[in-house]
């Protein structure tokens, strides 16, 4: 697991609800057998026209949004398919934090496992967060996982909830499998008791 403590950067605004993982990375890019290089295919059908030229109307193609490392979006972001290629692509493209009203369940977990911090804020908080908006960009956000806060340029602070266990794992960048392997005795005991009790 990749660690995460704090992050400062600008946030691109993708003002859409129900962005599913098919949009984040379309199926034709799921055929690779490694984890690298998915960033160029992020939001592929939105970023590019059929002839391969760039779609100037797509939010993330604006000159300001290109400077971003944080994504601000609507509700139910990352719904649909379990493909972990979606967070691999977001990370490879350069996003470290995603702020949304809600997330698809599997996608949320997949982000955490890849050191992307998914932050849930209310619709109103997201709107307030964008008060310093310059076009399609919110400048200078500061995210602190330890304190569970998002600060904007005006000094406003937005707090978010985060599961304490996953927070600890992320802060320390611990390898989850190593941690679990320390439970070997409990796993073995569970298996043995199951055999006895049926």
């Amino acid at each position: 697991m990749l660690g995460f403590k704090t992050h400062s950067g600008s946030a691109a605004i993708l003002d859409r609800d129900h962005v599913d993982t098919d949009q984040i990375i379309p199926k034709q890019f799921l055929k690779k057998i490694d984890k690298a290089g998915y960033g160029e295919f992020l939001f592929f059908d939105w970023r590019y026209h059929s002839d391969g030229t760039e779609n100037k109307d797509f939010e993330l193609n604006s000159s300001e949004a290109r400077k971003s490392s944080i994504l601000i979006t609507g509700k139910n972001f990352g719904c649909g398919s379990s493909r972990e290629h979606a967070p691999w692509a977001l990370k490879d493209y350069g996003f470290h934090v995603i702020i949304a009203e809600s997330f698809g369940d599997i996608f949320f977990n997949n982000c955490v496992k890849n050191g992307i911090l998914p932050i849930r804020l209310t619709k109103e908080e997201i709107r307030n967060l964008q008060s310093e908006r310059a076009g399609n960009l919110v400048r200078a956000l500061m995210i602190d996982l330890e304190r569970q806060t998002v600060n904007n340029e005006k000094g406003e602070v937005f707090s978010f909830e985060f599961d304490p266990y996953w927070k600890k794992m992320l802060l320390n960048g611990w390898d989850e499998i190593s941690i679990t392997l320390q439970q070997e005795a409990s796993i073995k005991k569970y298996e043995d008791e199951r055999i006895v009790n049926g």
Partner: protein
Amino acid sequence: MSKTIIDKLWDRHIVAQEKNKPDLLYIDLHLIHEVTSPQAFAGLREKNRTVRRPDLCFATMDHNIPTIDRFNIKDETSRLQVQTLEKNCEEFGIQLEGLNSEQQGIVHVIGPDLGLTLPGKTIVCGDSHTSTHGAFGALSFGIGTSEVEHVLATQTLWQSKPKQMNVKIEGELGFGVTAKDVILWFIAKYGTNVGTGHIIEFSGSTVRNFSMEERMTLCNMSIEAGAKASVVSPDEVTFSYISGKRYAPKDQEFLESCKRWSELRSDENATFDQTIEIDAREIEPMVTWGTTPSMCLPISGVIPSDESSTSAEERQSLLNAHHYMGFKGNEKIEDISVQHVFIGSCTNSRLSDLLQASKVVEGKKVHPEVRAIVVPGSQAVKKEAEILGLHQIFLEAGFEWRESGCSMCLGMNDDIVPEGERCASTSNRNFAGRQGKGARTHLVSPIMAAAAALKGKFTDVRSILPKKEQEVDHYAGV
């Protein structure tokens, strides 16, 4: 204390429990396919780890494989992915039902069909539609590739217990209304977020009267309602479905298992975080018109115009869907013509789905402007259907009869809907680009898909089949 079936399933799988931590849950069955597993096996290799319980893993290939000329995978990257699965399964000692196997098929079709899916099990797979297996009273959910690696290495997962929702469906379904219509109706009414953070138990007389295949369709699409998983309490219908399946317990062991499985039901006074009650009589044959499964209407419906929106946000999402789907609003569902029909996917590619669709098309012809394909969920389903002569019915009507796989549900193989064209699809997702860039997907039941194939446009299947025949059909679960 009274417990729900979800409590019972959860409690039985806790390996380690500590305050302020997720529970460490034991995983009884890990289903594996070619798309979400290569990086997990690579991760094991990198760290010099091994698969803890290869005997609890079961692999097949489904997403990528061609449905015509199946042994000849032309796409190089698809071929490499399939070969990588073969290599990984061999190296780590995992049973693989490959292209040559008569057990090959969509992972969520073969698990139940082979008796690997059993009540009381925890089942995971790197695929969101793992919720399908909940139909048996199993705790089953989709996971990402990191979690696939975690399960391979440890046979466990850290999980925080979700909230619980009881969706009670009571009453007899109307003529021509199927399990697919029930779940589409549910999502249309309550939205794609209704299940977020929850596991759903589907209960009530309608669900009890469903065959196992109908229950699988229902649970399959609970993920589209945002749920982590869904479950139906096992009963005699479940036990008789399992009886005699290849890997299911046999004889005395089966009887003892049934006794144990019978305890897996929600206690009478068990409480849920939320309960939704549904009257089955309200449900009609449904068709999605937009780009989420909640954009869905009865066959008699009219596509909403932007004037009907209650907020600017809703208006925008409606306009986006109109734009993608090629509508302006106010079009009647029954006036929408289709160029493609796909009967298949982990939602609706089982024998009863094909049987019901075949009854609609028998002795009739596919509309000349429609390309219609039937993709059985597994080699076994294909074989059984052929024994019943269903392939002849479909072929004579003008359908193509294909080999098993995920096919046009997501188009990772060659089965793609061209840009701007419409498909009546029995699959589970109508997201933009899902069946191909610019493809316009309309989700329907198998009998509604069959009706659309004949007419070249959406049609109320109830007008095609005589009532008597339809009633017999309704419980034609096999």
